[in-house]
């Protein structure tokens, strides 16, 4: 009888997993801190057009963003407005904005800076043309018309 009891005692004990949540929480906090969820509060509506020939923009750190579209809050009217960072702006502010943003960057990176133009479908080309002219004036020649991928067969 005693021998049988010894056999039972040799069964593998359950692995202690109580530290697992700690490890996973550590990972979770790392991701929460290290990644930005959404850094800009949208003030204008930007329903993107679709295109088939879109390319992925490589580095997020090498992007300037310009938003154009009708304001989400109708208090500000319905005609399209330009948004830079978190605030409304005018076309004339773009030159200063790009210069300022380029100043924060490494000089070597400046020729690779791309401007991501997020404009609403309904916007007229007049304002887009004005923006393009302003970008040419500050020598920010890489532009990307942000569009979502359209799949055709």
């Amino acid at each position, binding site marked *: 009888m005693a021998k049988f009891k010894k056999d039972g005692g040799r069964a593998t004990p359950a692995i202690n997993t109580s530290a697992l949540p700690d490890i*996973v929480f550590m990972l979770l906090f790392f991701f*929460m801190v290290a990644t930005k969820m959404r850094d800009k509060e949208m003030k204008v509506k930007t329903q993107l057009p679709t295109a088939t*020939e879109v*390319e*992925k923009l490589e580095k997020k750190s090498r992007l300037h963003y310009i938003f154009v579209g009708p304001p989400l809050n109708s208090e500000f009217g319905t005609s399209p407005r330009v948004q830079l960072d978190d605030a409304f702006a005018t076309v004339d502010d773009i030159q200063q904005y790009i210069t300022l943003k380029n100043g924060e960057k490494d000089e070597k990176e400046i020729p690779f800076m791309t401007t991501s*133009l997020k404009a609403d479908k309904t*916007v*007229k080309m007049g304002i887009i043309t004005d923006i393009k002219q302003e970008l040419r004036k500050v020598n920010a*020649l890489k532009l990307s018309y942000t*569009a979502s991928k359209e799949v055709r067969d």
Partner: protein
Amino acid sequence: MGSRRRDIPEINAGSMADIAFLLLVFFLVTTTMDIPTGLQVALPPISEEPPEDSKQKKREVLEVLVNAADQLLVEGSPLTIDRLQQKTIDHLTNEGKDPTLSTTSTAAIVSLKNDRGTSYDMYVQVYNELTAAYNRVRDDYSMQQYGKLYKDLDPQRDKDKIKEVKKKYPRKLSEAEPVSIGGDNGKI
């Protein structure tokens, strides 16, 4: 016996890991959700000198006009957007066959002109079709020469091949300086 029963039982923390994993996966997914995609454009630098357009022969240029009502005019005649790509491909690969289209692919130019009242959506669509046409002819040429699509050529190993394809079909997409013809000019 009595004191033993009153002991606080151990809380089962086995599912804690599941909850934490769930949160972790949620954050992983939401933070990488918007990989920005877009149509890449290289704007021409501003120059003080007036553009030298008179040199170009008319047959080398495929004129694409978009008016304020989002209608398309190609080489002076109306066209629907779904036929624009084929028309552009015909122009680029004409090699002198059709007397109204380009003589060689290296000289072919596409000129895009839009009104201030054109909608951005329409403009992007037209731009997309023109880009698609260039990509298609480059793909076809690359396939014919090297048995590989242009977009599948490796930037390091196939540098010369990419150069060759680009030389054969240079991307000459010129955009006219902005004009306004009455109506709602979209100015803020």
